[in-house]
């Protein structure tokens, strides 16, 4: 009997040990999870934590909140169908979506979990869909102010870039379906208004209205359109785009796919005397790859450098700062203006002496050089006497913070504005280049690149060696 008890106790001791061991392992794993998710929100936004409710406090008007509470309470108690927790989750998301959209700021918006995941992958150089950064922006055309789906930039080597989609393209239809703004009835309202003022033939008007109704009925809402082009869906897409300088809309056929972009590619131009570095995207390894490239160029005695910042939509500020270190170590990148008159100077970190580039720089930019990239271009010009070649940049110097939500969704919010330390602010205007050269789309020649080499050759006081051999590698 006693032996039996002892064996039982011994067994239990063993079980409890195992349970304790397992519990701690589980707890550790969870800790790592939580830390990494905290880091995720940190990495996308320095100093940002998951938003917490702060209701009490001086000077906060509680009326909007109490209205919201009343409406929700009424719905819960009286709505004809019982409101489920799933309904409430959807209501919260739609609430945030509508609230943020009403700020009319393309960078301030709600990201559902799917979009949030795409943002994380983009920060690792993995892209889906047509492979382009898009933005939804309100544009006034005539007397209609509507949201448009615009291309900020296609990614190097992605389906959109290969098909010839260009920065600034206005996507007006996908597979023949018109892209519809938030309020798709504006055009119809305008037609009715105009007809009231100046009535036309009745049957003709009715026909026009019917056509408009059909257009709206078959159209695709702008948010859905954006999702369709950026998500993992892979069906062939026929895009109708409006492009500056082209009277007629252009049709492009793009087959979306998942692809990975190498953050940096580099090569030598002109018998190793000039170097070429192309930054394709900002990821965690961009800076490391860039430094390796600079080290190699330095060791081979390169005399000048072309940095290609075209079609580069800036991501996280920290990554860009690291990337700037070989060129302007310890120098200020920009002044960050924040709400309530706060501001601070953002400094580029220092960099090992072997990784520093000291020679002349030409930066290639275009309309797809957006956000942090254009700020970097301005800083290179101000602090490293770089010359900018290509086209004026996008003109978006917003600092965007991602705030992760407990359900996997996120809020993207403009929290600041970057302003060059030495030169004039260019937000909303775009950075003026020193040598203006139009791009050549997808054609085999690259006049901007050739002009950059010419400019650089002049800067390095080298004899222009005729036509530069183009050794730029495309990934």
């Amino acid at each position, binding site marked *: 009997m006693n032996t039996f008890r002892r064996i039982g*106790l011994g067994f*239990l001791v063993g079980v*409890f*040990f195992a349970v*304790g061991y*397992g*519990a*701690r*392992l589980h*707890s*550790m794993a*969870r800790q790592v999870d939580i830390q990494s998710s905290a880091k995720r929100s940190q990495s996308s936004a320095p100093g940002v934590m998951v*938003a917490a*409710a*702060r209701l009490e406090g001086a000077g906060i*008007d509680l*009326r*909007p*909140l109490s209205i*919201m509470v*009343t409406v*929700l309470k*009424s*719905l819960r108690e009286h*709505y*004809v169908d019982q409101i489920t*927790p799933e*309904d409430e*989750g959807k*209501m*919260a998301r739609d*609430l*945030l979506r*509508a*609230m943020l959209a*009403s*700020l009319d700021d393309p960078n301030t918006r709600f990201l559902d979990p799917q979009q949030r995941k795409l943002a994380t992958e983009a920060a690792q150089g993995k892209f889906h869909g047509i492979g382009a950064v898009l933005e939804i922006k309100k544009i006034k055309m005539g007397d209609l102010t509507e949201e448009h789906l615009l291309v900020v930039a296609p990614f190097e080597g992605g389906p959109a870039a290969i098909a010839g989609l260009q920065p600034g393209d206005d996507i007006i239809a996908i597979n023949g379906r018109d892209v519809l703004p938030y309020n798709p*009835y504006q055009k119809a*309202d305008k037609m*009715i208004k105009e007809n*009231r*003022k*100046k009535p036309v033939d009745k*049957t003709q008007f*009715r026909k026009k*209205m019917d056509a*408009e*109704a059909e257009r*709206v*009925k078959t159209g695709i809402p702008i948010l859905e359109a954006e999702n369709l082009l950026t998500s993992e869906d892979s069906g062939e897409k026929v895009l109708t785009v409006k492009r500056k300088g082209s009277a007629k809309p252009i049709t492009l056929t793009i087959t979306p796919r998942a692809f990975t972009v190498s953050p940096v590619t580099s090569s030598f131009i002109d018998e190793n005397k000039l170097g070429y570095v192309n930054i394709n995207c900002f990821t965690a390894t961009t800076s490391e790859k860039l430094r390796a490239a600079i080290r190699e160029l330095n060791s081979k005695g390169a005399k000048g450098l072309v940095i290609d910042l075209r079609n580069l939509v800036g991501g996280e500020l920290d990554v860009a700062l690291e990337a700037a270190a070989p060129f302007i170590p310890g120098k200020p990148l920009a002044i960050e203006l924040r*709400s*309530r008159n706060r501001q601070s100077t953002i400094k580029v970190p220092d960099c090992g002496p072997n990784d520093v580039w000291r020679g002349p720089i030409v930066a290639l930019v275009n309309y797809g050089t957006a956000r942090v990239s254009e700020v970097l271009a301005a800083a290179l010009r101000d602090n490293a006497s770089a010359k900018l070649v290509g086209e004026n940049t996008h003109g978006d110097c917003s600092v965007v*913070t991602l*705030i992760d*939500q407990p359900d*996997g969704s996120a*809020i993207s*919010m403009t*929290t*600041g504005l970057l302003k060059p330390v030495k030169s004039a602010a260019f937000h909303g205007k775009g950075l003026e280049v020193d040598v203006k050269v139009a791009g050549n789309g997808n054609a085999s020649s690259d006049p901007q690149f050739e002009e950059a080499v010419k400019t650089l050759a002049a800067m390095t006081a080298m004899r222009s060696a005729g036509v530069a051999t183009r050794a730029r590698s495309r990934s």
Partner: protein
Amino acid sequence: MRKLRIEKIILAVFLLFVAFLIGFATPDVIASRGDLGRWIASLQLLPQRLEDLASQGFDESAASSKPLPIIESYSATLERLKADYYGAKIDEKKLTYNAIRGMLHALDDPFTRFLDPEEYKKMREENEGNFTGIGAQLDTNDNGEVYVKEPLPGTPAMRAGIKANDVIIAVDGKPIKDKDIQEVVKMIRGPEGTKVKLTLRRPKVSRYITKVITREVVAFQMVKWRMLDEKNGIGYVRLYQFNEKCDEQFDKALTDLERKHVKGLVLDLRANPGGLLQAAVDIGSRFIESGPIVIIQERGGERRPLYVEEEKHNHKRYPLVVLVDQHSASAAEIVSGAIKDDGVGTLVGVKTFGKGRVQTIMPLEDGSAVAITTAKYLTPNGTDIHKKGIEPDIKVEATEDFDPNDPKTDVQLAKAVDVLKVKMGLLPKSVLEEMKKTAQSPKADADEVSETKGPLNRASTDEVKPGDKPSGKGKRSE
């Protein structure tokens, strides 16, 4: 002996606890890889780690996909915007209004909606059936000019000598050229007792006429009536909307028609977007002898019939034809549904809109309001017409050239009169049979009409039980 046993149990439990603790600490000890400092540090953290375990629990799914709490998400985001958003100043009210709109949008019910203070005020005016203005009905003529279609009887416009066909040139000295009729209406309306100056061009008068008129409370004219056929005693009543004043006006219309010896009646509910539930019961009671007009089905399924109000039975009974179309919605469908189920009248036209939901307006503290769908309604025989509509007894489509202002183009009305004549014995029954046969062929169409969410139909999609806009009529009362 007994004491010893308890001690043994305590000892055993303690042993198990120690075993658990050792097990719990082991991973950290392993992780410290022999480093004594880390080993001790990890042991010191033990109590806190146990606490972590207790608070985290083992439920992993809960952490990753919890639905967002509505109020907390809203207030946290709003506070965050106020603290850190860089851009235009945060307009808390505008953001909140849009947040509410977004939240309601998630329910996928176009009738549950938010009304900002201006929209709510307009709705209240329409429900009450009053507004403060001068009482001139405006319209747009073929040249795109806004003109007076009719000064309403007993209103400031009538007393000031404004006449039909006066074209409005300016309001308070501001030319209204290029202004939309709704903008003109807005300019003419204003607080009670204030004055408005109208500059008018009158046909065959060379100089502009100027009138200064004091604004008053004026009732919307929701009912229009006339004798279509004096000889046969065929009367016509059109109801534009269901509000607090419409039953009173309706009573007056029937009294007047009876004075003119009406023997049969066409009730026109076309393009009537509905309105107040009570008004529907009032109007329905004018025609139906007894029983429910409508059955309200609350959340949870409880049914509450609203019965005929017998004090409304102050008129004679005569054959009745009701005209309906794809824009007849809500309260208009309650009345036509009750008449159809009861058999007291014949429905002519096309299938109705199909809105079988009742909204309740909840006023909010800042002057805005929210309309919430709180119940379904069923016709007296228990049919839910939501998203289905009511099929007319005799289907007649409007023709392409139909002009609401020109009775000659109105084939639906002409057919309604024929049906009425059959019911009155003025035409043989065979006419009816013939009509039913021909109407069967071009059907399919009506199905589509009520489903279309195109811009033309949008006006009625938006309409909600208590208080609807008389849009789509192309006409506004001023």
